[in-house]
């Protein structure tokens, strides 16, 4: 199973969750983070500059779809990072 992690602007959360659902994910986990990157520092004190980290466990094919859609639809325009890793889950049929 794949764990896809996405760090992006907090205001995008709803939109990314929608994208994940459309791509075939059956759940997700999210929490507020702060950080820095190509688009400068992002402070967590006001929601306009805060980041959110989303984590989603999906089948490899779904992971491909998610990453491809993120790249196509959001990467150019928003502060965002995404990566994928391998995990072993209990009850794999759940995801």
């Amino acid at each position, binding site marked *: 199973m794949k764990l896809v992690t996405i760090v992006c602007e907090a205001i995008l959360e709803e939109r990314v969750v929608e994208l994940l659902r459309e791509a075939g994910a059956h759940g997700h986990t999210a929490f*507020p983070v702060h950080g820095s990157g190509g688009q400068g*520092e992002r402070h967590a*004190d*006001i*929601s*306009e500059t805060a980041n959110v980290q989303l984590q989603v466990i999906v089948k490899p094919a779904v992971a491909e779809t998610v990453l491809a859609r993120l790249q196509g639809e959001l990467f150019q325009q928003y502060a965002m990072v995404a990566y994928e890793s391998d995990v072993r889950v209990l009850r794999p049929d759940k995801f």
Partner: protein
Amino acid sequence: MEFIAAIQSNLLSPPVLFFVLGVFAAVSKSDLKFPEALYSTLTIYLLTAIGFKGGVAIQEAGIGAVWLPALAAMILGGLIPLWTYPALRKLGKLSMADSGAIAAHYGSVSAVTFIAATNFLKSINQPYESYATAFLAVMESPAIIVGVMLGKGALSGKFSFSDQSMRHALRDAVLGKGVLLLIGAMIIGTLCGKRGMDSVEGFFVTPFQGVLALFLLEMGMVAGRRLGDLRKVGVFLLIFGITAPIVHGSAGVLLGTWVGLSVGGATLLGVLAGSASYIAAPAAVRLSLPEANPTYSLTAALAITFPFNITAGIPLFFEMAKLLQS
């Protein structure tokens, strides 16, 4: 002379000085940090408090006295982007998206600047229509919608209402927390009236000024962090950030006087027109005009126009209104 005194009294008020302290904290890289939860809490508090107070005032004045100036205010908000946008395109050579984004911010309004203006009027014992909060509430959304439409190419026919990100912008402009809390609390205030106010005065009125000071400490830190971006936004936006409030503020004062507001009320409409949003607009614009660089609009609104208004703009619009109505 009097004008100088007015500025001075404005400058030495706790909210303004706490704003300066916040800028200092950011610039000196102190480890002072507000937790996110405090910022949202302060925002929720300020919006419900002014909404509620405004609603009580509307109930006392009667809807009959409010609707005309409120409508005028709303139309003014929607019109501002129509001249701001071409100015940014032509004079500033900014992209379509950036021009639309900035126009949306400057047509929309800043609640904190509005409160600072009512404080200023109170401090010099200048009466004003206390239902003016209604103007604040109705001026938040129209400019955001118009600005986003322009930024998406409305003038070149590229734009369509069924666009998904346009739907997001519309929802955010109308159901965003800023508008929802302001209008919601205003309706509650109108329904409860004086009697409801008596019960919650100890929360929505007594500590209000101090909470505002604390909020401005945080705004100062946010603005201070943007000072470094001033160089990035360029001279044009610097000039724009001071010219726009003067032009829009004058229009507001004129319109206010024309629809029959008192000197205080016309000042407030001027302040609203002259202020730029940094609570409602940024989120809605970011979602619907992602190509726009938020550094431009936020830095101009928060690090240039906001300090200008809070120090010089407010007394300026007041003097204008006085002159006009004398």
